């Protein structure tokens, strides 16, 4: 069975298509692992064996008839609990949605279901995707499978831990400021945030709408390419979904890297990065040079402003988005209140956790009368400068590389008392979201305490196929992405 949990999606797909393996057998294997290992990791919020097996039986029927089967039919996946999933509890990691059974499917869920994938369950996350350590979840923190005293990263920490511990071969994640890439780095897997607008946000519970983007998390770039093929595409129900021709993100996977120009922003290689992370990233760059790439120095002079600009823009958008949670149409309602105003303010006070409340308050403040220009408009102008830096840098290079996270996974409680310290965990990932660029993280070695280090690749707008090619060739030459945490069984 160890070969199955470590298999690529392509190999699983081939075994399913050849009927050497049934979708029910495969789903059962992962459900049994979840039952056994999840209590120690807390990666899943909800599982439902009957629902999962019903989907698996349907996939087996499709595979048997061959009618409508795709490369993903019968392959299990788990969804970050930010994706509305019809008939499943969808909590967004919050008490305010703790009993919310979604009456509809997110576009991403609809697409993956349509491709025949089998839902293993709903994955834990920072509340409303606000966090970099999974410590803000109402359902308790997710543990890092490499060391359960350390955080898995966030906000897609459940997705990262589930793949890392081989509780699922594929998962969905979302990335507003690094929430796919940073947990992928901290748990030793591969994750991709697409260009803004490539994956539909319909049914993906909104945090900061101009930054939120869904994407795949898996063991390898090749697996991510296969998943992205099924996740991407125009959706009229998302007003910022882009009308572009469908792409095969696997098309360039095997292209040789000779002559590839890798831009190294000097701002990403400064004092902020831990020494152990630097060693692993430098070794990865040396490997790329062996593969024929050349590295060039580039500069992103305004990238230092990305975290403060983000902490104006994201809370502003969040304060607006989260106003929908009022205890009227869905979600938690306080048991006692004197009038309508108190019903709102008490339901929200009892339903939201501390970090979510902080961001709502910051957002409300920066948008309030008299402060809008000084904070929100100024942050949007700086956002333009940050995006402009990337336009200039991509004139000099094909992809940009650097660390995903300034450190390996940190201990629980290390940053949770100081919000600003926690915000700085995303110092290398946030600029990508502000610019709307695609980004990836892939494992490139181990640092202190033998914890995984992630290499970040930033692509040009719509450069997903190029990034996947660059990541895949590295993964053919190295085996970091095949490493699995020990001591779990």
């Amino acid at each position, binding site marked *: 069975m160890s070969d199955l949990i470590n298999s690529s999606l392509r190999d699983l797909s081939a075994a399913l298509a050849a009927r050497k393996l049934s979708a029910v057998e495969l789903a059962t294997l992962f459900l049994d692992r979840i039952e056994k290992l999840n209590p120690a990791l807390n990666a899943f919020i909800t599982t439902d064996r009957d629902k999962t097996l019903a989907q698996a039986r349907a996939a087996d029927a499709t595979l048997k008839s061959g009618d409508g089967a795709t490369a993903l039919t019968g392959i299990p996946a788990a969804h970050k609990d930010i994706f509305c999933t019809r008939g499943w509890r969808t909590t967004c990691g919050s008490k305010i949605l703790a009993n919310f059974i979604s009456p509809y499917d997110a576009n991403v869920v609809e697409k993956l279901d349509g491709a025949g994938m089998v839902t293993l369950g709903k994955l834990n996350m920072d509340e409303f995707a606000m966090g970099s350590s999974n410590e803000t979840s109402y359902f308790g923190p997710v543990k890092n499978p490499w060391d359960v005293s350390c955080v898995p990263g966030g906000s897609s920490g459940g997705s990262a831990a589930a793949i890392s511990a081989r509780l699922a071969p594929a998962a969905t994640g979302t990335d507003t400021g690094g929430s796919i890439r940073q947990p992928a780095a901290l748990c030793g897997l591969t994750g991709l945030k697409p260009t803004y607008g490539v994956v539909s946000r319909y049914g993906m519970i909104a945090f900061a709408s101009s930054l939120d983007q869904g994407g795949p998390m898996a063991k390898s770039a090749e697996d991510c390419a296969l998943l992205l093929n099924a996740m991407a595409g125009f959706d009229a129900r998302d007003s910022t979904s882009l009308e572009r021709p469908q792409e095969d993100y696997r098309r360039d996977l095997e292209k040789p890297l000779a002559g590839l120009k890798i831009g190294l922003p000097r701002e990403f290689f400064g004092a902020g990065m831990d020494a152990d992370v630097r060693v692993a990233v430098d070794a990865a760059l040396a490997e790329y040079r062996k593969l024929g790439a050349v590295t060039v120095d580039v500069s992103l002079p305004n990238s230092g402003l990305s975290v403060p600009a983000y902490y104006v823009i994201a809370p502003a958008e969040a304060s607006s988005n989260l106003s929908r949670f009022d205890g009227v149409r869905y979600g938690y309602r306080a048991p006692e209140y004197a009038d309508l105003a108190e019903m709102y303010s008490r339901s929200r*006070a009892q339903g939201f956790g501390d970090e979510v409340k902080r961001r709502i308050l910051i957002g409300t403040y920066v948008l309030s009368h008299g402060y809008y220009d000084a904070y929100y408009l100024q942050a949007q102008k700086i956002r333009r400068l940050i995006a402009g830096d990337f336009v200039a840098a991509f004139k000099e290079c094909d992809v940009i590389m650097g660390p995903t996270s300034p450190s390996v996974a940190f201990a629980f409680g290390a940053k949770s008392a100081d919000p600003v310290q926690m915000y700085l965990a995303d110092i290398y990932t946030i600029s990508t979201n502000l610019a709307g660029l695609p980004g990836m993280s892939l494992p490139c070695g181990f640092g202190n305490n033998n914890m995984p280090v992630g290499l970040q690749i930033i692509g040009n707008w719509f450069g997903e196929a190029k990034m996947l090619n660059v990541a895949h060739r590295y993964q053919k030459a190295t085996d970091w992405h095949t490493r699995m945490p020990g001591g779990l069984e």
Partner: protein
Amino acid sequence: MSLNLEDVARIARLARLELSAVERETTRDQLNDILGFIEQLQAVDTTGIEPMAHAVDVVQRLRPDVVTETDHRADFQAVAPETEAGLYLVPRVVE
């Protein structure tokens, strides 16, 4: 500038979040830390820079004015805290 307890109470009221007296104090300190951190944006000269509201410059799509949604009232109200006769119930607002 930094926020005082009255500012925090005003922002909390705008955000429809009930805060206890103790919470107002910790919130004031934490919000001031965060505002101190974002204060560095003020030093940047952004004269003549167009604000960037979105990652991609797209114009709003228009669609023909035809009904595209079917009736989901029963589905949607099944998850509501309190409904009656197809209506959402809230505390009385008009005497």
